[in-house]
């Protein structure tokens, strides 16, 4: 049987193409789908890889960002600096909220050389890095104040102003693009640096030009001869407590606001301390004029009470109370020193001193007062201090008026010790020596006379006897030797141009607490800080008893505030050198360092940035110039601070020891110490301690209306960023 092949119904022309196309389509679709999914996977993998590249780059950026902090810490006008020194309270309301600090920083342009280098091996080189930037921010809840300073019973300085410690966060974003048309891939990493803001002048302590708890005897006594200060003797120290001004202008400086900017002086301890300070009529600025610049002014002929001869009515009453008719007039001279060789009164001096040695003529006893006028600046003195302007009080017949001038010369030679009236020669031997007393006092014993000389104008150097002068009881009472006025009161005299016998009532007009000016100077109130002179932030410290301020108690909080601690295995100098803060004769501190090993600082020719160094003891081997920025604070917390025979610009604090001058003191800054040891080989020049008002006056932190901030803050931070997730 023949079977006819069945005609294939699908055997139409082109059928095979349809089948092939269908198969091809299915294959293409399937493989494309598979390929696409693989490609997506790869793209994801590459994107992840690129993201990792970006993350590594961001990590480098985080590390580099510390340079932005380093730069900002040197620039008080930078947004970061300003933000970090803001008082804590300004942030407290923000709690945990993030506060951006300054604008986003373009690290790739700031550190182009580094970015060029680290992008060398990327597929497109430098073009691969589309962005590398950093944004700093702070979280207020991560800020805390520095350890509080306990300065006395129930008196604590909360350092919550500009000072603080905490974390500053940084967010670093890196964006890479490895192909021209690729999507950019970004990664942002965040981290933080620990930081501290420390105000270099130490609170309260920096308010003092001089703060000493104990004196090694009479402070500021002077051994002087006819050629000036004596070699081998104890040198004098001239205190400048703030802005220097000619005497004629200092009178206008005494008010509450100017006092707030001045240094204070606290001379505590057991010993009676004599702080001699005076001014001159000859207003010259030469340091060599110290102690030799006084020119005696009798009085203004047209106004007898003017000038320096101030009539003291109260004393006049005392001097005349035994007489039926007032005879004596008591005048006060605020004295300086004069060579007595030249000047308008040269002829008179020669007359007076004829036959005496040149040494006497120099009036060396007055040199211990020495301070030319530009060194006088209003300040306040705390503590049991006999301090102030040297005052000669002399009684003379009221008529003729210029007889008081003669009386002045009678008492001129008397440096009787105010601390030991028993040595008063005139009182002890008056009866026996009365006929010769004036001459004796004048020629042979210029160290034993009394304060009041009842001068017989008819006899050169002669004194009137009791009967003609005053009652013996009054005389003895008045014969107390020379005295220095209450220093603060002397300022009032200056303020009132020395024309008002008792200017105390004017204290209130100037807004100054009256208690600061009342006699006696040993009043307990003289050791307390008047609240009126403190910034409002420290109002709680008002009435702080300085005699109870324990410097030692301040050490531990200061140590805990330090930014860096020197490793025990290193010396302080080695550490400073290793950290490149000390290089040869150049110091660039800019931080607060605490060390357990003594510090010996070589002579420096440049101090770029100040800061604080705490060490057990400190020896300065040479000069310390003024810091270009900030102030250098050296704290010896166990032993002494040894000073060189060279100028030192620093705030020196010896909490448990002495500041030892190994030559004439020459410090611009301030001194706080248990003792000030001036030594005995001061040479023939007086020492000087000038309050560095420009650096130390910042008792309260403020940002000025134009945004300026003090450069006396140091901002330092950890050099390693801590990553956060």
């Amino acid at each position, binding site marked *: 049987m023949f079977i006819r092949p069945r005609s294939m119904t699908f055997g139409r022309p082109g059928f095979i193409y349809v089948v092939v196309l269908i198969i091809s389509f299915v294959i293409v679709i399937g493989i494309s789908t598979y390929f696409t999914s693989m490609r997506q996977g790869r793209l994801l*993998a590459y994107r992840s890889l690129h993201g990792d590249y970006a993350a590594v780059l961001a990590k480098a950026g985080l590390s580099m960002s510390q340079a932005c902090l380093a730069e900002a810490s040197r620039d008080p006008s930078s947004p970061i600096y300003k933000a970090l020194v803001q008082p804590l309270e300004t942030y407290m309301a923000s709690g945990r909220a993030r506060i951006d600090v300054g604008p986003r920083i373009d690290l790739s342009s700031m550190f182009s050389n580094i970015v060029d280098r680290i992008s060398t091996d990327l597929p497109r080189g430098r073009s691969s890095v589309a962005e590398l930037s950093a944004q700093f921010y702070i979280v207020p809840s991560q800020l805390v104040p520095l350890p509080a300073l306990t300065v006395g019973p129930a008196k604590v300085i909360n350092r919550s102003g500009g000072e603080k410690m905490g974390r500053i966060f940084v967010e670093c974003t890196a964006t890479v693009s490895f192909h021209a048309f690729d999507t950019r891939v970004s990664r942002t990493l965040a981290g933080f640096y620990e930081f501290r803001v420390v105000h270099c002048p130490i609170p309260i302590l920096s308010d003092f030009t001089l703060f000493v708890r104990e004196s090694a005897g009479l402070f500021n006594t002077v051994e002087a001869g006819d050629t000036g200060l004596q070699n081998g003797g104890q040198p004098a120290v001239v205190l400048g407590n703030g802005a220097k001004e000619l005497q004629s202008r200092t009178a206008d400086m005494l008010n509450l606001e100017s006092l707030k900017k001045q240094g204070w002086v606290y001379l505590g301890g057991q010993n009676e301390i004599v702080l001699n300070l005076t001014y001159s009529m000859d207003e010259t600025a030469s340091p060599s004029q110290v102690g030799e610049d006084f020119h005696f002014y009798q009085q203004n002929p047209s106004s007898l009470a003017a000038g320096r001869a101030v009539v003291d009515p109260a004393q006049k009453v005392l001097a005349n109370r035994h007489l039926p008719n007032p005879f004596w007039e008591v005048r006060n001279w605020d004295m300086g020193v004069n060579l007595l060789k030249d000047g308008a009164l040269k002829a008179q001096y020669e007359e007076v001193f004829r036959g005496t040695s040149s040494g006497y003529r120099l009036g060396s006893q007055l040199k211990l007062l020495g301070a030319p006028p530009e060194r006088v600046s209003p300040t306040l003195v705390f503590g049991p201090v006999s301090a102030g302007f040297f005052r000669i009080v002399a009684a003379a017949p009221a008529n003729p008026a210029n007889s008081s001038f003669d009386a002045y010369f009678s008492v001129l030679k008397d440096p009787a010790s105010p601390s030991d009236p028993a040595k008063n020669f005139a009182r002890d031997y008056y009866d026996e020596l009365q006929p010769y007393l004036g001459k004796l006092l004048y020629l042979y014993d210029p160290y034993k006379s009394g304060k009041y000389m009842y001068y017989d104008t008819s006899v050169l150097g002669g004194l009137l006897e009791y009967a003609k002068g005053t009652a013996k009881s009054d005389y003895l009472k008045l014969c107390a030797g020379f005295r220095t006025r209450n220093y603060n009161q002397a300022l009032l005299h200056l303020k009132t141009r020395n024309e008002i016998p008792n200017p105390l009532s004017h204290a209130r007009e100037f807004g100054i607490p009256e208690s600061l000016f009342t006699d006696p100077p040993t009043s307990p109130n003289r050791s307390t800080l008047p609240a009126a002179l403190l910034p409002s932030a420290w109002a709680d410290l008002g009435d702080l008893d300085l005699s109870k301020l324990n410097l030692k108690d301040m050490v531990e909080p200061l140590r805990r505030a330090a930014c860096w601690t020197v490793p025990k295995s290193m010396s302080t100098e080695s550490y400073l050198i290793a950290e490149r803060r000390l290089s040869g004769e150049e110091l660039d501190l800019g931080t607060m360092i605490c060390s357990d090993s003594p510090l010996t600082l070589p002579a420096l020719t440049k101090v770029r940035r100040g800061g604080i160094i705490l060490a057990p003891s400190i020896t300065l081997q040479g000069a310390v110039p003024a810091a270009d920025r900030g102030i250098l604070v050296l704290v010896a917390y166990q032993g002494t601070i040894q000073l060189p025979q060279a100028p030192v610009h620093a705030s020196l604090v010896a909490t448990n020891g002495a500041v030892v001058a190994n030559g004439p003191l020459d410090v611009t800054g301030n001194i706080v110490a248990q003792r000030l040891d001036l030594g005995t080989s001061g040479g023939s020049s007086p020492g000087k301690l000038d309050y560095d008002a420009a650096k130390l006056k910042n008792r309260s932190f403020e940002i000025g209306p134009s945004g300026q901030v003090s450069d006396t803050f140091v901002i330092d931070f950890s050099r390693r960023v801590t990553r956060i997730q």
Partner: protein
Amino acid sequence: MEAVTRQTRGFSFVELGIAILILALTIVPILDLLQGGVKGTAQSLYLSRAFQAARSVADSIYSCPWSSLDDATVKTLASKIEVPDGCSRPRVDSIQLITSSLPNGSVLETKVATIRVGWVKTEGKDKTGEVVLTAAVSLAR
């Protein structure tokens, strides 16, 4: 017996040849694409492994204090990294120090360490490549 003709087969050999050609032209590139995709995926795998090794070295470098970062240290660090399959042991070029002086006087010293990790296999064929990663650790003074 009737001869098998195009009518009985339903298609001619010419048509079949053309169809096979079309199929080949379609499938071969697709297969090549597929192979390329597989190879790329494998490559990205080894690349990723190499990169992770390099990044591990970079991370250990970043965790190292700046002062103790030197050639010997980074070599030690690199030697401690577990080498993934298909990758070579990480190598670190000599550290390069870049010093940047900034306007306010601070100085940024950056130690740059270039880490290289090679990968050696792709789909059974020997092929080498290298991941290069750069770590930069800075210290500001």
